[in-house]
C-alpha cells in the first residue's frame, strides 16, 4: 500500500500549504511528522483523511492514493472506512453526549450489524482498559479521558490507517503515557499510523520513520536507525523538542527559597457544585513574590480551578491571600491578578489590538494611547495595532492578553498551559517573554505539563495533588 503525494499544492492558508511533497507510507509503518507550527503537518493528515479538498477547499495538484485509489476523488464516507483520525482538541471531536454512543458512532454510520458493533466495543473496552469510562457523559470527562475515548472510537471503527493530529497537546504526563500505550497496541495489531506532533518524546522510540517538515516541504527523512543516532544538538538544530520524556514533577526546583518575599494563601477550598470532593484544598501555601512559579500536577488535579480561585473567579472559594502585610479577599484579588486562559480567544473582546489594551488601561491616564502603543512595541505587537484580535495567531493572542495584564497594572499574572501545542522555537519565545514580564516586577504562576518550559524559565515549582 502506498500514499503518493505527487507535487502537492494544497493552499488552504498560505502558512500551512505544502509544496512538492512526496511521501510513501508502507503497510503497517509508523510515520511521524514533525516541524515548526504552520509547516504543513496537519495539512498532510487532512489530505490523507480526505478533509482536503472535500471539506477545506483549496487548490490541489498531484494525487493522494490509498491502496491505489485516489482519496481526493472519493466521497468522505468511503475514506472513513479506511482512515480514522484522532484530533487535537478533545472538546470538539465528539458527536454524541454519551461515551458508548460515541464508540459506536462510526460503525453505526457504516450500517454494520448491531451484534458486530457490540462485539467490537466490548473488545476495545477490554483492550484499552476503559471500562470505567463507559456509559458516562462525555462533558464530565477530563481531557485525558476524552482523548482515550477518541482513540478507542478509532479502534472500534477498525480503520487500518490511523492518523494522530497532535493528540497530546492538552494532556499531562500520565495521560500522555496512556496514549503511548494505545499506540503500542495499534502497532502490535499491524495498523498503519501517521502522527503529527510537536511533543516527540513519548513516541520517539516507537516510530519507524521521522519526517521533518519546514515551510510545506520535507527537509529531513530519518529512518529508525538514523533518528536514534541523532545528538541533542542536532535535534535542536532541526528545531525539535526533547526526546527525553521527563515528568514535570521530576524537575527539581524549590517551592519557596530563603529570602523570597512571601505571598501566603490560606484556606483555599473549592469543589464543583453538587460534588462533595474538594478539587482544591489548600490550608496554607507560600508563594515567592517576583518569581516564576510552575504549577504542575496530573489532569484533573485542580490546577485550573486553583487559578480560578486565586483570581477570585470562584465565588464559593473563601480563601484569603496575604501579601506585603495586606489581606486580599476575593474581590481584591480580582484587581491584582490577571489570568491568561487556555482559550485566549475567549478573553479578547474588542475590534482592534490597540483598543484591547486601552480598555484595560486606567481611564484617567491622559497619554494612555501612547503608553499602550509603547507597551505593544515592547511585546512586538506594534505591527498589528489595527488588526482584529481574533485574527491573530495563537502566540500573538497570548502576547496581547499579557499586554492587557501589564497595562491594567496587575501584580500577579497567571497562565494556564501557555505552551500546549507549541513547537520548540515558539515555546522558547514564550519562556523569554515570561522572563521579560518577570523583569517588570510581576509575579508569575504558570500551570504547565511542559518540563522543557519549566527548565527554560521557572524558578520555583509547586505540585498540586488531587484534593
Amino acid at each position, binding site marked *: 500500500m502506498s500514499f503518493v503525494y505527487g507535487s502537492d499544492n494544497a493552499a488552504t492558508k498560505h502558512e500551512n500549504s505544502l509544496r512538492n511533497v512526496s511521501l510513501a507510507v508502507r503497510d503497517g509503518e509508523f510515520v511521524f511528522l514533525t516541524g515548526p507550527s504552520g509547516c504543513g503537518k496537519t495539512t498532510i493528515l487532512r489530505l490523507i483523511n480526505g478533509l482536503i479538498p472535500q471539506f477545506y477547499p483549496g487548490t490541489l495538484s498531484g494525487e493522494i492514493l490509498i491502496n491505489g485509489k485516489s482519496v481526493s476523488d472519493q*466521497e468522505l464516507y468511503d475514506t472513513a472506512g479506511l482512515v480514522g483520525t484522532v484530533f487535537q482538541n478533545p472538546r470538539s471531536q*465528539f*458527536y454524541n453526549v454519551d461515551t458508548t454512543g460515541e464508540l*459506536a458512532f462510526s460503525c453505526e*454510520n457504516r450500517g454494520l450489524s448491531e451484534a458486530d458493533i457490540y462485539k467490537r466495543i466490548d473488545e476495545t473496552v477490554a483492550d484499552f482498559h476503559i471500562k470505567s469510562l463507559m456509559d458516562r457523559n462525555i462533558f464530565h470527562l477530563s481531557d485525558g479521558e476524552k482523548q482515550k475515548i477518541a482513540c478507542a472510537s478509532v479502534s472500534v471503527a477498525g480503520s487500518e490507517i490511523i492518523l494522530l493530529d497532535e493528540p497530546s497537546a492538552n494532556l499531562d504526563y500520565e495521560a500522555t503515557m496512556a496514549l503511548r500505550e494505545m499506540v503500542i497496541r495499534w502497532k502490535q495489531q499491524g495498523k498503519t499510523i501517521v502522527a503529527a506532533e510537536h511533543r516527540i518524546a513519548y513516541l520517539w522510540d516507537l516510530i519507524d520513520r521521522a519526517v521533518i517538515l519546514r515551510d510545506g516541504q520535507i527537509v529531513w527523512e530519518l529512518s529508525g536507525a538514523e533518528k536514534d543516532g541523532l545528538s541533542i544538538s542536532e535535534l535542536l538544530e532541526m528545531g525539535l523538542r526533547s526526546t527525553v520524556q521527563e515528568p514535570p514533577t521530576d524537575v527539581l526546583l524549590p517551592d519557596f527559597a530563603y529570602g523570597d518575599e512571601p505571598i501566603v494563601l490560606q484556606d483555599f477550598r473549592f469543589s464543583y457544585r453538587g460534588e462533595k470532593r474538594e478539587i482544591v484544598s489548600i490550608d496554607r501555601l507560600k508563594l515567592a513574590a517576583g518569581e516564576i512559579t510552575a504549577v504542575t500536577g496530573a489532569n484533573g488535579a485542580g490546577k485550573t480551578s486553583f487559578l480560578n480561585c486565586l483570581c477570585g473567579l470562584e465565588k464559593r472559594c473563601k480563601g484569603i491571600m496575604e501579601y506585603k502585610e495586606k489581606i486580599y479577599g476575593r474581590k481584591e484579588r480580582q484587581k491584582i491578578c*490577571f*489570568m491568561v486562559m487556555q482559550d485566549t480567544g475567549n478573553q479578547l473582546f474588542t475590534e482592534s489590538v490597540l483598543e484591547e489594551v486601552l480598555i484595560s488601561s486606567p481611564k484617567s491616564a491622559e497619554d494612555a494611547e501612547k503608553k499602550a502603543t509603547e507597551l505593544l512595541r515592547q511585546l512586538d505587537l506594534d505591527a498589528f495595532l489595527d488588526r482584529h484580535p481574533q485574527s491573530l495567531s495563537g502566540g500573538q493572542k497570548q502576547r496581547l492578553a499579557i499586554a492587557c495584564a501589564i497595562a*491594567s497594572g496587575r501584580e500577579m499574572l497567571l497562565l494556564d498551559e501557555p505552551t500546549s501545542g507549541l513547537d520548540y522555537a515558539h515555546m522558547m519565545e514564550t519562556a523569554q517573554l515570561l522572563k521579560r514580564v518577570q523583569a517588570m516586577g510581576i509575579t508569575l504562576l504558570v500551570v504547565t505539563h511542559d518540563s522543557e518550559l519549566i527548565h527554560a524559565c521557572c524558578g520555583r515549582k509547586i505540585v498540586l495533588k488531587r484534593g
Partner: protein
Amino acid sequence: MRYCSKAAQEKRRGFIDPRTKLALVVIIALFVLGGIGGEQMEPVKTGLSALPFLLLLVERQWRRFLHGLLVLVLGYGLLLAMPYLPGVLNYIALMCGGILTRFVVTIVMGEYLIGTTSVSEFICAMEKLYMPSTITIPMSVMFRLFPTVAAEWRSIRRAMGMRGIRFGGTKAGQVVEYQMVPMMTSCVRIGEELSASALTRGLGAPVKRTNICRIGFRIQDHVLLLLCAAVIGVWILELCGVTLWWS
C-alpha cells in the same frame, strides 16, 4: 468482569420511547402553553401539567424535578397572592405568575426529553418516524451544541469578570458586543471542527444506519400515547359542542 455493551445498553434504556416523549412535548406545548381549548379542558390541562414531573421522578432526575417544582410553586404562589396585592404589583404578579405557570411545564417536559435521550436514541426514533436525515442530523447536533455553547459562554463571562468589564460600569451595549464577538468566533470554530470530525467518521453515508440503542414501544408508551389521543379526543368533542362534564 468484562464489559458488556449490550447489557449496558439494555440497562440504560429509558423509561419511555423518544417518540412518546416527542408526542408528549407537542401535546403539552399545544394545550398547556398554547392554551387551546375552553373550560372543559381545564382539568385535562392540570393533569397534563403533572405528567412531566412524574416522569422526572420515575427517571430519578431529582435536580430537574426540584428546579421545575420550585418555579411552578413560585408561579402559583404569585397567582394566589395576586388579589391581595395593591395596584401595579397586582399586574406584575398576574403577569409573572401567568407566564411561569404556562411555560414551566413545557420547559420541564423539554428538559426531560433532552436530559434523558441520547443522540443515538434520538436519531433512531427519528428514522422510525421516516424523518429525512437532512432534518434529523441538524436536530441531533443540537443535543451536543447546547452544553458546548453553555460552556463557552461561562468561560467568556469569567474572562470578562477578570478583565473588569461588567454591566453597569461601562456602556451596556458595548458589553453585549464584547460578549458576542468571542462567542461567535469560538462557536464557528467548534462547529467546524465538529463537522470535520463527524465527516471523517462517515456521517452521511448513503447506507441504512444501524443504531445500537434500545428503543421501542412498551406498555407505558402505549398508555401515554393513548392519553395523548384522549386529550385530542376531548378537545374535538368540545369543539363539536358535546358537554362531557361541568367544571
